[in-house]
């Protein structure tokens, strides 16, 4: 390479080239193949901008654009209201069951598509349990699930864990010395939170809020299942999948989704610009935890329980559905049975093992790629490093269907040498699709983590003679571990219920993951119960996985804390 790279930059540069190559092959090229259509005159095939003009002149699309923006902003607000108390209570106070609360707080992210909406309809729909009860006793009904409000409600319940996870990681990373100093200077209560704790956790909050905003902005499943179609993502999907390739509007909307998501990422970066959130002192481990007085404890638990009951209600609905026989226009199912579980048990094992394998590999690849990108962007001066971040983040805004079509189009005639099968129908392509789709989650978590690690710590290590590689391995990565774990958990949990891209790519039923199996079941009257049972199994598996990883990280935090204490003791 002729580039004048210093020896310390060679490693990251090589990693950068590999990551770039991966992103080019599996994100840029396939999407470009599809996006190309947006700039093509449908009649002549020539390059044109007329499709964009059509978009902006159409009142339906204008309305869709406004609705998408409104729903995303309101969802961020509602998600914040849900996530803030959970994150704050569990990191700030000595609180029994904090890990359990954190785990339960992640569960909503793993609501498998289709079953979730069915369960929500049965509970909160116009003739759902709640409204039937309200109607019977009070003579009123509340349109929870109607129109845009329904979308906001479901999206907030579904995506608030992004804020919860990232905010908790950030709160845990704040140096307790900061808080102590503030307290010594007389700050306490809300003032302490508003002036010290919240500002210091901003990178985590903004990372989470940006994810919620973008995710809601391009989410397809929820509006479709509530049959709200005057929003951008469903418009794109409906046009791509029902009108087909010659109509460019679906692709125009995809381009606009990608563009707008990049814009909001950029805005979130601007919001954090020129502010230093890193703290030098490490090892103290997180916010100072305070013991609660009894009445405070009761209050906190009450708030937490109300929130958890609310956000987990779709899962209660799902559980009822999986045990219920017939549930129709009634508060509860007519009777209960184990039949649905018995029915799926034979076929489920293959779906489960496929899902664990696919989502596990995808999440692992995601944190490796994300750590690499975060390091390159924030710690090196490589040319074009910001673009690596932008491109990887843009994956967030690529509708799954578009990615799926792009893969089929790009790799179907490409046979893999030894196994002699087209790449597009090999199961590995499903893993790659999951990796690309969830990379932005891992990336935001890792970027937030690295922003909180001071460069001075690395410099200190290097001054003491450590090589760059050793510094990264022994200092940067361990200090980022909370963020990396957060990234792994979100990527794994959400990849395990991924449907929109995989639905285009599953070439054999024996390769199918869980979400695909559930989707299949939910397309017939007799399959509703078994589909729900499969959904519960998925939630349990991912939930247990999440819980275990939380326990592991908590343990390693404690271990580090103890060893620091020992070291401090020895020094005195």
């Amino acid at each position: 390479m002729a580039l004048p790279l210093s020896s310390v930059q060679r490693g990251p540069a090589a990693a950068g080239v590999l990551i770039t190559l991966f992103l080019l092959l599996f994100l840029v090229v396939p999407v470009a193949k599809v996006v190309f259509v947006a700039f093509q005159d449908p009649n002549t095939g020539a390059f044109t901008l007329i499709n964009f003009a059509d978009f902006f002149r159409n009142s339906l699309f204008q309305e869709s654009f406004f609705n998408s923006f409104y729903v995303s902003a309101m969802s961020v607000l509602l998600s914040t209201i849900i996530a803030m108390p959970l994150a704050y209570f569990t990191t700030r106070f000595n609180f029994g069951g904090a890990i359990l609360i954190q785990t339960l707080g992640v569960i909503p992210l793993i609501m498998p598509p289709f079953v979730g909406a069915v369960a929500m309809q049965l509970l909160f729909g116009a003739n759902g349990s709640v409204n039937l009860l309200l109607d019977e006793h009070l003579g009123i009904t509340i349109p929870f699930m109607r129109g845009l409000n329904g979308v906001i409600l479901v999206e907030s319940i579904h995506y608030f864990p992004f804020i919860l996870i990232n905010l908790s990681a950030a709160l845990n990373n704040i140096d307790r010395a900061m808080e102590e100093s503030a307290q010594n200077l007389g700050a306490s209560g809300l003032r302490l939170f508003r002036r010290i704790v919240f500002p210091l956790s901003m990178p985590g909050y903004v990372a989470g809020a940006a994810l919620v905003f973008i995710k809601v902005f391009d989410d397809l499943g929820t509006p479709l299942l509530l049959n709200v179609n005057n929003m951008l993502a469903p418009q794109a999907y409906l046009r791509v999948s029902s009108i087909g390739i010659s109509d460019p509007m679906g692709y125009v909307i995809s381009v606009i989704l990608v563009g707008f998501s990049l814009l909001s990422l950029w805005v979130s970066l601007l919001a954090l610009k020129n502010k230093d959130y890193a703290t030098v002192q490490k090892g103290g481990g997180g916010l100072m935890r305070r013991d609660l007085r009894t009445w405070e404890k009761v209050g906190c638990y009450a708030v937490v329980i109300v929130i958890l009951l609310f956000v987990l209600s779709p899962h209660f609905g799902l559980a009822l559905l999986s045990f219920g026989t017939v549930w129709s226009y009634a508060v509860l199912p007519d009777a209960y049975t184990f039949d649905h579980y018995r029915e799926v048990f034979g076929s489920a094992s293959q779906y489960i093992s496929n899902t664990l394998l696919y989502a596990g590999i995808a999440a692992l690849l995601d944190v490796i790629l994300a750590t690499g990108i975060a390091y390159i962007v924030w710690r090196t001066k490589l040319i074009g490093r910001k673009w690596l971040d932008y491109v990887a983040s843009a994956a967030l805004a690529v509708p799954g269907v578009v990615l799926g079509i792009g893969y089929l189009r790009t790799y179907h005639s490409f046979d893999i040498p030894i196994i002699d099968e087209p790449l597009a129908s090999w199961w590995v392509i499903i893993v790659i699709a999951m990796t690309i789709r969830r990379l932005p989650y891992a990336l935001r978590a890792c970027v937030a983590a690295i922003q909180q690690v001071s460069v001075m710590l690395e410099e200190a290590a290097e001054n003491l003679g450590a090589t760059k590689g050793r510094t990264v391995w022994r200092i940067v990565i361990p200090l980022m571990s909370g963020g990396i774990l957060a990234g792994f958990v979100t990527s794994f949990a959400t990849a395990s219920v991924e449907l929109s891209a995989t639905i285009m790519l599953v070439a054999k039923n024996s390769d199918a993951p869980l979400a695909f199996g559930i989707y299949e079941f939910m397309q017939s009257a007799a399959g509703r119960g078994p589909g729900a049972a499969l959904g519960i199994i998925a939630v349990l598996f991912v939930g247990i996985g999440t819980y275990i990883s939380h326990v592991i990280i908590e343990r390693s935090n404690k271990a580090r804390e103890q060893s620091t204490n020992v070291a401090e003791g020895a020094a005195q």
Partner: protein
Amino acid sequence: MRRSTAFGTAALLITLASSPASALEGSLTIVTSYPPDTTTTFEEAFEKKYPGVNVEMLKKKTSAGIKYLQETAGNNKADMFWASAPDAFEVLKSDNLLQKYSVKVGGIPEKVGAFPINDPDGYYKGFAASGYGIMWNTRYMKAKDLPAPKEWSDLKKAVYFGHTGMSAPSRSGTTHLTVETLLQGLGWEKGWAEWKAIAGNFKTVTERSFGVPDGVNSGAFGAGIVIDFFGLSSQASGFPVEFAYPTVTTLVPANIAIVKNAPNQEAAAAFIEFLLSTEGQELLLDPKIRRLPVNPATYAKAPADFPNPFKDKSIGAAVKFDLDLSKSRYNVINSLFDVMITYRLDDLVAATKAIQKAEAKLAGNNNAEAAKLIAEAHALVNAVPVTAAQASEKDFNKIFKKKRKKADTKVTGRQAEIEREWDTVTKANYEKAKELAEKAVSLL
């Protein structure tokens, strides 16, 4: 002695006759839009008969299945395509993606209702018949004190306001056939007026075709427009629902075809023969499947009140479905329905509500001016921006064609541009209609 020899010979002959078939080996990949209830039942029965064959069912929505076969044609790995909508098979046939096959099994008549069971060119075969109708939730109807709807025109009535649902024809091949059937049965203007009057009562237009039976089953809405087996299988699964065929319905075959360049042609042929055999046809009566067999003899085994189109000639007889007419305006109808109904449902519902209110107030009240305003409002709602002749026009249809066949194909006009024009007119009409109806109310 002689007898046992004869018996032995017969047994030997049977073994010999069936041995080439049971020696069938390899895999069979079927792209299908059917739910696991249908696919697993047939997969298990078929694999039991041919233990050497491993059947892989590849579940895709009909439109996604077409797209999948189109995208993968260069390196095809699929053997069969198995779905309901005949027009999906027409698309694949015209793309040269299907293979001819002539069926050996006997007993299947030429027609069901007014429709030929098999593709006259020999590319795809009908294995079951499907008609369209209305399903409703009996608990819901009882709780809301609603009568059971029997005809399409019942669904126009004000009592059903906010209680019904349907999928969009652009989303569901079977719904498209329902829309087209009514347009053919009543004529273009009257047909659209009927659809808008029905849609004005909609609670929702669902994205998936299964969204309709799902909504009715769970009681999210009371009645839905569905393909027959959705209603029949929901009922068989224990849901409190009923299903009826309106007079203006059509019966069309659900089909299966061998994909061009299928890697396992022998197994594919065996699957078609199995599907049409006595055994395969009887499987269709399974409570989880409940489709109308194409072999009339099979109905002898059907449950008591199971519809039999070969006996009950009223099912699907009112409309002689014209496949060519349907093909000539396929995409235009999907697009019109989406612009006027799917995406403008809120506006349409608001206008309908105002009109219904005005009509209720007018009843038993002799006010010529108000009646005139209401009639004007109806006319505005019913207006269709395209005439029947234009909808079938070749050049006009090219704008909506799914595929630009060659790079040098020249077409003038863009779909998005035309839809925008339709949308502007439609939205204004609905708003005006609502104003007129409100004005009529103020006069009463």
